[in-house]
């Protein structure tokens, strides 16, 4: 375990060095993301100039949700997505072989090796918005709320991680699965609003097959004081199931890869 943690820190260090090489790119990226976030905050503010509540969500709670959205999206694009994209490329080029011959857990090295640290800016800006929302709520946060928030956030990550792992694993059979990532991306955009405002089919999709909606809404509910404990329990159970399934699916995919590829 400690070895894996050390390795992970090393991955971060190596990637940081790489990204810091390109300062102009770094600045441009941060500015661009800041613009995107400012625009979406403005959109929420405009929306709430016409109404006081969106399906029971107040403006302060919406800001919390938006903040959490950028934290979640930023974290996923920070750690999981770059590795998953790289994995698909490696399957296509045949260089995955090298990763599989390392004396280390293949799932670990394949899903966490690469990251895009620039996304930290997204995470930080998201936190700022979420905190602004909490301040505006003006109710103060109990320790239990914070704990529920952290648990919900972590569980949400696990769910999305599992989804991305399953998508990546599909590339063992279909080789070209980038389009699935595009579909995933489209649903991610929808998660900047609470899942409960959407019509049934979309709500169900965002909470099950593509659980990004859950990953954002549940932590936001926790912090905004709207969380029903059973939702959290259900989400935890789903995360455990998803973790077991995706791990099994990955090993299955590997077996097929090593059984068939030339």
């Amino acid at each position: 375990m400690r070895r894996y943690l050390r390795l992970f820190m090393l991955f971060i260090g190596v990637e940081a060095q790489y990204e810091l090489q390109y300062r102009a790119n770094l600045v441009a990226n941060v500015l661009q993301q800041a613009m995107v976030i400012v625009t979406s905050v403005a959109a929420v503010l405009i929306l709430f100039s016409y109404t006081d509540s969106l399906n029971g969500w107040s403006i302060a709670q919406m800001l919390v949700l938006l903040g959490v959205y950028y934290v979640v999206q930023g974290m996923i694009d920070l750690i999981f997505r770059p590795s998953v994209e790289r994995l698909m490329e490696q399957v296509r080029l045949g260089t995955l072989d090298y990763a599989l011959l390392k004396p280390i857990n293949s799932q670990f090295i394949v899903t966490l090796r690469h990251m895009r640290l620039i996304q930290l800016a997204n995470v930080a800006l998201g936190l700022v918005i979420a905190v602004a929302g909490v301040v505006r709520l003006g109710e103060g946060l109990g320790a239990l709320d914070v704990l529920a928030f952290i648990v919900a956030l972590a569980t949400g990550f696990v769910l999305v991680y599992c989804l991305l792992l399953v998508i990546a694993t599909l590339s063992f059979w279909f080789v070209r699965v980038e389009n699935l990532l595009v579909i995933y991306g489209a649903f991610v955009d929808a998660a900047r609003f609470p899942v409960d405002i959407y019509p049934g089919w979309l709500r169900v999709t965002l909470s099950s097959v593509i659980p990004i909606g859950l990953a954002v809404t549940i932590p936001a509910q926790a912090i905004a004081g709207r969380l029903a404990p059973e939702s959290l329990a259900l989400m935890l159970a789903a995360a455990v199931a998803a973790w077991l399934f995706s791990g099994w699916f990955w090993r299955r995919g590997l077996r097929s890869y090593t059984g068939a590829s030339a």
Partner: protein
Amino acid sequence: MTRAIIEVDGLTKTFRVAERSEGVGASMRALVRRRYKDVPAVAGISFRIEAGEIVGFLGPNGAGKTTTLKALSGLLHPSGGTARVLGHVPWKRENAYLRQMTLLMGNRSQLVWDIPAADSFRVLQEIYGIPEAAYQRTLGELTELLDLAPLLHKPVRGLSLGERMKVEFAAGLLHLPRVAFLDEPTIGLDVSMQGRIRQFVAELNQRHGVTILLTSHYMADVVALCKRVLVIHRGKLLYDGGLSALAARLAPYKLIGVTLRDGETDGELSRYGEIDKRGEGRVTLRVPRDQAAVTTARVVHDLGDRLADLSLGDPPIEDVIDKVFTTESVA
């Protein structure tokens, strides 16, 4: 009998490949219903390799060389047969095994292109759990042997093909494996870089006793490095033995090259042996191996002063190997 480092017994690997006919119509049909065909890539081969050997693996494209290497390194689950490398079943991919072996593919890169090799090396050090002292020692040695110093801190993207291959070699050997599978390690490199890599492989084998199984399209690699070769064709092992013995067995003749000052008249040289080729005043004769010395003496005796040049040698190994692949057997 002591245990060999690599023991392969009746290894087979059959791939199921989707059959496709040409044309759009056929492709559409293939979408709905695929037809599969079983293609035997390796059809039951057996061999043993002892510690410290360098063995060349020869065969035309598609002969099953890479498939065998992949099975031995643990990437492929064979359809049948057994194999043990360092006492491990490779395809179980136990960490204890992976730590002691390496697979290097000349046409596939394991380094991350955007970052300098030195950073990738650090990651490898951690993955293999190489203690700092050992890491420094090995890296120092590899740097010296491969002349890596100017290459380590540039992003891999900016290196030439040859430079990249050297760095790839270092990456694959940082953990000082006991067994190395090299798949076309010199592919695409220029002659002098091929020579460098060759020299390095020999050095590695001598200094650290690394057992090496290598494939190459360049016979020069094999001639320079391997005393022993395995010849594989259509998934079957055709020959296992010394390189020179292979030549003797396959080509039971030698070549005598004769150049006459006044040129050849009336095909007079054909009485000494079969004419292999004529060109630029030089005639090459093909004579049975056991008579080569005597025939040469006769040529010298008969033609004496008329000789401008005379040579005696083996046929080029490429021709010998080529003959194996066209006749599909070793006589």
